[in-house]
């Protein structure tokens, strides 16, 4: 019975990532889409938070949104899996429900 947490805002714009991490049980997964993909950048001050999250959750990022924003795989912290929209759909089927942190 697990949750796919979807975050669509940058960690510097909203507290969605922080609230999600406070409320996500171990075993649930996090998918970064839209502006949420900025969180993957290893040089940002948010990197530590996401790094910690990787200890408890699988973390995915939507590749088309990264590409749109010029966020390269080189700039990413390790351990994040990239998915396209097909992969997004697959995740939505694999997890029992999704929670969009709006």
């Amino acid at each position, binding site marked *: *019975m*697990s*949750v796919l947490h979807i975050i669509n805002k940058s960690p510097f714009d909203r*507290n969605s990532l922080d*609230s999600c991490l*406070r*409320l*996500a*049980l171990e075993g649930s997964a996090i998918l970064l889409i839209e502006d949420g993909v900025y969180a993957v950048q290893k040089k940002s001050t948010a990197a530590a938070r996401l790094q910690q999250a990787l200890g408890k959750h699988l973390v995915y990022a939507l590749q088309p949104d990264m590409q749109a924003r010029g966020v390269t795989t080189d700039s990413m912290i390790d351990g994040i899996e990239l998915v396209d929209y097909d992969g997004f759909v697959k995740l939505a089927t694999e997890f*029992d*429900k*999704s*929670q*969009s*942190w*709006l």
Partner: protein
Amino acid sequence: MATKKFLYINRKAPHGSIYAHESLEVVLIGAAFEQDVTLAFIDDGVYQLMKDQDTSAIGSKNFAPTFRALGDYDVNQIYVERESLEMRGLDKDDLMPLTWEDEDDDWAEKDSIHIVSSAELAEIFEQQEVILNF
């Protein structure tokens, strides 16, 4: 009709945007479908439940009193995250006293609002089947 566990998550303050108002409308209309409904108020969403909201000077419709009707619609599982309240310097006394009447307990009036920790709320999320955010 199947019964599913619906969770409505509220993270936005009222009045500065329409999300709080329109999400309450979903809850009220949804009540007719007799599903197992839970509401969660997190982050700025906790502000939606504050007492003494008066929109007369800003000229918009004050929908806050409608929360009091939730008990009549069998919506009485209302969870407020303690951490969100504390960060905002609020406690239970700052919130509207929302209640419901338990017909299985001689119509005793009970609190609909439960202030819970993040950990408890996380467990509540896991039990749900449909999660709506606005």
